[in-house]
């Protein structure tokens, strides 16, 4: 039993840490989010050069064949630096779907281009009425000869503005909330029939509303089997959820450490505010929340993700527990910083905002708590010890 990184993982960790330190100081980061596009192409090129875009892909396609632990390492450091480039939605989530469902031809064509940085895919899954239910899909794809005609509306697609291609979850059969009958289609973001409404998010990332009107796609643009995409969607969203939690953990570490330092230095009534026992205990509780959050992330990372039941349980346990830690550590970081914490100028508020929005991403505390309960309590006889 060990929680150590391998030598390769330590190298990866050092590499990403160096990237953030050298290329992502606070001022640089703030200038990136203020640009029109909200991310920096040069950084993406550098990710490609460093091999980061290949972490999750197989070696035969030129990737690193990385594990969830490798992705955790990347995302945790990205979290510490509040790196805004759309690595999670495009490399991890969309990349995961392509690996999971792509035909040999598709992966041979697409994956090397993702790794090289030439293409970025994103996955458009959420709809307004779906909330966090991945099977709740209204967007329809209707067969028309050899083609499909797609119509629908996808909500809050992260990174879509930066993407060359979008993977669309569309209903080819079944009811709106049926797990069967969902098919994935790949389309260029510039296709006739796709309109992107790009906007910045409250935490300074970018997302888009994706409006799909009479988008005509050939059979070849289908990813995976017709009607059968749901299991892969759930699996890849689950894996992306782990990655998002790794990002959150990196953020929480910064929040906890920054706040502890601030309290040691900030003086009120003639002494550092960290001399107040109430503030000391609050910092202790923040530290404990951080440690517990880290532990449950390690639980998820080391669990058997190839077993769908285990994976779902582990991911929902992780996401709901992480959500609690985000709230506690985030809100107290602001509170202990006082007025300074409230300002846009001071960095702590940006970390708080990003952590909070990760709390919503892929399902909030209530959603994952319910999913965990459904998996662990509805069928109590089958519980293992």
């Amino acid at each position, binding site marked *: 039993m060990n929680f150590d990184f391998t030598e390769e993982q330590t190298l990866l960790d050092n590499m990403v840490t160096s990237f953030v330190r050298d290329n992502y100081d606070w001022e640089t980061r703030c200038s990136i989010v*203020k640009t*029109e596009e*909200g991310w920096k192409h040069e950084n993406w090129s550098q990710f490609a050069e460093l091999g980061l875009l290949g972490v999750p892909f197989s070696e035969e396609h030129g990737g690193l064949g990385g594990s969830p632990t490798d992705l955790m390492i990347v995302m945790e450091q990205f979290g510490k630096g509040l790196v805004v480039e759309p690595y999670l939605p495009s490399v991890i989530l969309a990349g995961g779907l392509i690996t999971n469902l792509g035909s040999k031809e598709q992966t041979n064509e697409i994956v090397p281009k993702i790794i090289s940085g030439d293409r970025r895919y994103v996955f458009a899954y*959420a709809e*307004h*009425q*779906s*909330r*966090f*239910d991945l099977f*709740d899909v209204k967007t329809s794809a209707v067969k028309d000869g050899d083609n499909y005609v797609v119509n629908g509306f996808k*909500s*809050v697609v992260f990174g879509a503005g930066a993407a060359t291609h979008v993977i669309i979850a569309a209903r080819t059969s079944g009811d709106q*909330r049926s797990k069967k009958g969902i098919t994935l289609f790949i389309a260029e973001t510039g296709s006739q029939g796709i309109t992107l*409404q*790009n*906007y*910045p*998010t*409250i*935490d*300074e990332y970018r*997302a888009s*509303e994706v409006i799909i009107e009479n988008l005509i796609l050939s059979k070849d643009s289908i990813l995976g089997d017709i009607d059968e995409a749901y299991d892969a969607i759930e699996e890849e969203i689950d894996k992306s959820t782990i990655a998002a939690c790794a990002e959150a953990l990196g953020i929480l570490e910064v929040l906890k450490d920054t706040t502890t330092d601030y309290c040691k230095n*900030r*003086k*009120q*009534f003639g002494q550092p505010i960290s001399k*107040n026992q*109430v*503030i000391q205990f609050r910092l202790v509780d923040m530290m404990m929340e951080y440690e517990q959050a880290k532990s449950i992330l390690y639980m998820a990372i080391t669990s058997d993700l190839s077993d769908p039941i285990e994976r779902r349980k582990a991911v929902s346990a992780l996401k709901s527990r992480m959500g609690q830690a985000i709230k506690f550590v985030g*809100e107290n970081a*602001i*509170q202990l910083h*006082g*007025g300074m*914490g*409230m*300002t*846009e*100028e001071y960095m702590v*508020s*940006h970390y*708080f*905002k990003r952590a*909070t*929005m990760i709390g*919503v991403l892929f399902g*909030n505390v*209530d*959603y994952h*708590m*319910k999913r965990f309960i459904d998996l662990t309590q509805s069928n109590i006889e089958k519980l293992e010890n």
Partner: protein
Amino acid sequence: MDTAFSKEDLAFQKEVRDFIHNNYPQSLRDSINAKRKNGEDLSREDFTDWHKILGKHNGWSAPSWPKKYGGAEFTPTQKYIFEQECAKAECQYVMPFGVNMVGPVIYTFGNDEQKEKHLPGILSGETFWCQGYSEPGSGSDLASLKTSAVKEGDHYIVNGQKTWTTAANHADWIFCLVRTNPDAPKPQQGISFLLIDMKTPGVTVRPIYLMDGSNEVNETWFDNVKVPEENLIGEENMGWTYAKFLLAHERSGIAGVARSKKAIERIKQIAKSEMSYGEPLIQDPAFQRKIAEAELELKSLEYTELRTLAKDSAGKGPGPESSLLKIKGTDIQQRVTELAMEAVGYYSNPHLGSTLSNEFVGPDYAANLAGSYFNFRKASIYGGSNEIQRGIISKMVLGL
């Protein structure tokens, strides 16, 4: 025990309700709604339009002021009713700096010239005030303030910096705590209470942007600002006394009960529209429970406030209940903004107020809910942080 309103109170309630119905401008409602959707800051007119209308109606802009200064002189129950009705109708609130803060200080400690000069403008809403207390580095330790006022002839020369000055960008006047005696044995001594015209040369206002992108607060700089000695309130070096009076004075409404009630109603409406697990979110037991818990806490707080009001009405004088009202009131405000954000799921993400985009996406009701959650983290920090308030209760009530 009796919490039923008297006939007179019920008549007053109807009078207020009718007055709002007939006089609250639709244009103001539209303006504020549009700005909320687009994430823009309110304008000076947004802040003062309603104030000005109330100012022309029996002193309703100043519910607590004595009639002789033009105020409404409401009873505590009337004040409670008035606030309830304003909140129910979602009226823009009257900014407190003039009416609730500097006004009572002026009519209590000011001289006749000061009353004549300043009170009418506060009442009518013509003069926009802001408060100069906090300084960088002083925070909760207000008495450590450094802004200096040195007497030269019939003027004070003011130098220093105030921060977290709400609405300084709109204000005509600022009331300041300044240090007039740096050698006083205790930091609370040697502080004076000074009124400063914001148009005086040497006054500079710089915006502070909060994490939701709003510009509510500012830095206010004083660089050799000449302030006539007639702008000193009361006695020199007695400013701390007036500041403490002011803190204890206006507790009515500090808990924000009526507005939080309205906010919970709004969340319920949102939760009827939003879907969760294929049904309206309002059917989700976990969400229901959180709404109910907020409602119960609020219901308790409402009666805590009513008990305080009843004590006031009975002339038993206020206690340090204001700290309890502040702690619990802001706690609920924060919970409520969080629930609203939570209700809209992914649609808490779009940042409509950004300079980069003001295209509207998502349902109307989702606009700026995350921003509001982030913004309201201030509530447990400002006005004496909730830690400071607990310290007050510990000392003043429990004698620890």
